[in-house]
Each structure stands twice: as C-alpha cells, then as structure tokens.
C-alpha cells in the first residue's frame, strides 16, 4: 500500500495538497477523472515523510495517509 492514497474520483484538482506538501511529493495528473477534474497523484513516494499535511488540507476528504 502507498503512503498516500488519493481517491482520484473524489479529487477536484484544487492543488492545495500539491502546494502544502513540505516535500513536493505530489503532482497533478494530465488526464481527467470522470467529472472532468485533473486529480492529484503521489509522484515521488520516496520523498514522502507521511506527515499527513496533504490529507488535512484536502477539502474533499480525497486523501488518506499511512506510515510504514
């Protein structure tokens, strides 16, 4: 399981998680979900410190964070 699990169908592509991640682990995908939003995804898992900030800042409860 990944450290950060993003539900791409819930995501509205607002980029708050991308901007607030202290390790710049997240990016925005280049293809849309079924609602037409470009969802966020975990692009650099090795850099992720499982701090939970992306999950807390996501307004749409699209992110869950885990620690190995």
């Amino acid at each position, binding site marked *: 399981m990944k450290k950060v699990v993003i539900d791409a169908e819930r995501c*509205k592509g*607002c980029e708050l998680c991308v901007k*607030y991640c202290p390790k710049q682990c997240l990016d925005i995908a280049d293809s849309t979900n079924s609602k037409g939003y470009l969802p966020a995804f975990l692009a650099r898992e090795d850099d992720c410190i499982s701090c939970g*900030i992306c*999950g*807390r*800042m996501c*307004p749409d409860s699209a992110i869950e964070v885990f620690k*190995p």
Partner: protein
Amino acid sequence: MQDVYRTSNSLTKNTMHYCPGCAHGIIHKLVAESIDELGIREKTIGVAPVGCAVLAYNYFNIDCVVAAHGRAPAMATGIKRVHPDRIVFTYQGDGDLASIGAAEIVHAAMRGEKITVIFVNNAIYGMTGGQMAPTTLVGQKTTTSPYGRQVEHCGSPIRIAEMLSTIPGAYSVSRVTVTTPANLMKAKKTIKRAFQNQIDGKGLNIVEVLSTCPTNWGRTPYESMRWVDENMVPYYPLGDFKVPEEAK
C-alpha cells in the same frame, strides 16, 4: 502500515458540492473531527444556514436541520432548550450571521445560550454570486462593489468576534483560520474547545473562522489562502477574545 490521517466518522461519504479548494470543506472536517474525538456524534444536532453551507446536512453524519437565512441561533436556542442534554451547533456564513442574522446572534449571545457557533467569514456572499457582505474589506471588489468597498458609502467591515466579546452572555469568543497546517491545528483545538465548553454547560461559544471563496474572489485556492493571511488577518486579528481561565 499505520494510519496517519483518515476521514472522520462524523462525515458522510458524500462528495461535497463546494467549489474546488473552497475552505468550507476543510472547516467541515475540523468540526467533524472534534465531534468524533469528544464522542458526541450520537447526541449532536447541527443547524445549517442559508449560504453555500445550506447542504451541510448531507455531509455531517449527525442529525441536522436548516434554518431560515440568519436564524440558525434562534433555531438552535429552541432545540437546546427543549433538549438540554443534546450538543447543538450552528454553522453560518458571514452573509448569514453578520448581515441578515445579526440580531439573532447578538441576542443568542446576550441570553448566554448554551450552544456552539461556527462562523465562517469569507468576506463575501458566496452562494449568490459574490456580492458585498458586511465583512467585505475596504477596497475589496465584489459584484456589488465593482470599484472596491467604499467606507463613505457602506461603512467599515464589521468585526463580529470583537463585538460579541463585549457581551456578558458570550462565554468563549475566538477567531482562527485554516491557511497553514499550524493555523489549522490551532483552529481544530479552538473548535473542539468550543464544543467542550458546551458539554460543560457553558455558552454561548463562538469560533469565527476566516475562510476563502476562490470562485468569487477570482483567485486560485492557494492564492486565496495567501490572500486571507495578507489581507484579512491584519483587519481581523486571530486569537482568543474571551476565554475564561477555567476553559483554557
């Protein structure tokens, strides 16, 4: 794998209707987490406003009602007085609480109602298309102040937390925001305390949360967060305006 962050049990699985990046969703989560942590989900009743949060009952996994515009504190008063063992809160925007509902919040505070009020101030009428609110900043452009709010014409923005803190019946009055992870944690602590105070039989408890409206402000969600820090916080300072020692 160990859980670091998961969605609260006091939220339903429904997708929120809020615009992408709107801070209403973040504030809902803080309220829901507070309800979870205090173990009061089964006995909490929410009163939703008229405004973008009118559909909040779809998202809180608790019993909710919707009040007429601005009347949530009056409705919450009735519910709490009939069911004093329940935990009752209102969730209201600035158009709802500070404009059409100004009398209701002032008198609910004056009576010292044992309720919790989450006041979401985004300096605009979000739902109706971005009109000027009493909280709109001087110079801020909205659809009804296209050249920016002018003091000579509309007066100065109302500081609700400061005003309510002068009312003896208000038990706790604070202002927070959710613009950084640190501010968010502080906001969570303050909201949780505003519920704990009610559990302890105290009221009225109000938390003003400086929020965003990326859509009507014409800014990205992240720029909107910065705009709160740079423009709203200097006029609407954060902090506890009235919190008794016993509640700290």
